[in-house]
């Protein structure tokens, strides 16, 4: 699946200051019965977001009109647990383009990158500043500049640089995916297979 290009993003944020947000919270297993990638956004954080009868719970941040934006800011260690890519599909399906946290679970990070969702890992201190700034003023904007690997609180800082694998960066900047790359080296794979059979 070709992914959306990601170059620079300026947006307000949705804060979720909870640690260890696991994939069963991001998208509970009972919603994994679909056979396409669409529609998962409606059930993002379903058990926190809706009550038993399917009515929105007022106190959950996604139901609070004060907060909106294309960036989800989450507590330490987001995405632990299952390998379900549905978690990334739910987050992108809802409309997020980036997730900021001080720590990401491995598979979740990979899955995000494979879907054009940018995981931005920042220091604990920066994350704390971000949460505070958003709490003080929900209209606070941040800028994520992938080219320069820099995340900044607008209008005038603080900012921090973040890491990303150079190969993945290239993929995101250009909107191409791993399979395109691997299909292109098919001959090399055949050679390897011949040498190892």
């Amino acid at each position, binding site marked *: 699946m070709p992914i959306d290009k990601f170059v620079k993003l300026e947006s307000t944020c949705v804060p979720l200051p909870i*640690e260890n947000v696991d994939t069963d919270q991001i998208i509970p297993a009972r919603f994994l019965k679909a056979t396409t990638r669409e529609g998962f956004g409606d059930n993002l954080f379903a058990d926190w977001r809706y009550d038993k009868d399917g009515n929105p719970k007022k106190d959950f941040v996604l139901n609070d009109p004060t907060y909106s934006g294309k960036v989800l800011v989450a507590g330490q260690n987001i995405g632990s647990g299952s*390998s379900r890519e549905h978690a990334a599909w739910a987050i992108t399906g809802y409309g997020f383009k980036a997730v900021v946290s001080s720590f990401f679970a491995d598979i979740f990070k990979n899955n995000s990158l494979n879907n054009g969702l940018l995981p931005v890992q920042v220091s604990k201190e920066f994350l704390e500043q971000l949460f505070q700034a958003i709490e003080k003023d929900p209209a606070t904007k941040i800028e994520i500049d992938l080219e320069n690997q820099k995340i900044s609180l607008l209008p005038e800082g603080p900012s921090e640089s973040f890491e990303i694998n150079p190969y993945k960066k290239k993929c995101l900047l250009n909107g191409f995916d791993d399979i395109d790359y691997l299909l292109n080296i098919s001959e090399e794979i055949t050679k390897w297979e011949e040498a190892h059979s």
Partner: protein
Amino acid sequence: MAGKTLFEKIWDKHVVTKVDGGPSVLYIDRHFVHEVTSPQAFAGLKDRGIKVRRPEKTIATADHNIPTMGQDQPIRDELSRFQVNKLAQNCEEFGVNLYGLNHKWNGIVHVIGPELGITKPGMTIVCGDSHTSTHGAFGSIAFGIGTSEVEMVLATQTLLQNKPKTMRINIEGELDKGVVSKDIVLYIISQIGTGGATGYFVEFAGSAIRSLSMEARMTICNMSIEMGARGGMIAPDETTFEYIKGREFAPQGAEWEKAVEEWRQLPTDDDAVFDKELTYKASDIEPMITYGTNPGMGIGISKSIPKLEEVEKSTQPTFKKSMEYMDFQAGDPLIGKKVDYVFVGSCTNGRIEDLRAFAEFIKGKKKADNITAWIVPGSHKVEEQAEKEGIRQILEEAGFEMRQPGCSACLAMNDDKIPEGNYAVSTSNRNFEGRQGPGARTMLASPLTAAAAAVTGKITDPRDFL
């Protein structure tokens, strides 16, 4: 030059090429597929108009979504039925081997791979499922992947992967009576937390690990993902070879000798260096149980839930939320708390040794009246074996019933859901909020601790009966 670790030996052998400044292209020996994480990958192949590159290297099973009663009937839930049927269609269309519902080899993907002898030392193994780490118990590199990566492996038999860091966790000495491999792994996670091994591939070693059976080793590697690890592994040895020998897909005759000779070269060299190394004493471990909503929130069963001030400041809001969800008080002991459900099963503890341990414990006792128990074998072969050994009968005499194989209440995608607010002692691997059903309250433990709860109706130290 320093020697190599088990991990490095296998990894290096499977690198096809390296992307400049980027990941490696890793060749994949075995690919397991199940109904939940594969439909979008097959659809991706169709969109691109390409085939499965090496269909004979992929094995599919239906496990997550299937009922554990009445498997001879069509699946009642429409979406589940559709997904399971979709898998069958995709396998048919792309020429992939399927051990689907009612196939004699059907079962949970991480149970059938090892028991059929498909999983072998030195292999690279992936599946769109985080508990693929289970297969590492055989001395293979096995890890979970997302659906885009499933598509990648189907299309190219390779994956783009960054080499993880390596960690060795040693457990030295002898385990006390009543302490089993599930307790070891819950103990490690309680020590290092759910992110403690993120970015690492973990090798488990030490005399306590070496003394374990293959099935016990699988339980540990299975839950390595719960400490954040990319995967877990254990060096192959005589126990490993003994287990594989004679299984359906094990090498035969001269091939066998050759294979064992190769496998003997795999263990970590004495002078190899790990990025990180941890050592624990087996004698410090007691039967473990979790009190919270992630697998790191575990304690020795005789201990009490931590007090709020004992929890790291930044974690306190999460801890409080967790206590609220579980309706537990910080500082309280767990012993004596009422239990409603007992679940024995899953790719963590749904193998024959687990059923044996449970059956031996409850033999001659009775199920407590307040308990609903679901005993779910991990595969048809496990079910058959339990039948043969008289385990089903022991269970029935004590008031338990054995269901049909599948993932069941481990993730509650089928009808096996723990009702809201109920407490379950579960031998599975995740106690996340809602994992076993909306509002379900899960406490992870070993089959022995589950058995003790099943006959007493409350949290009980299994050692009281030994």
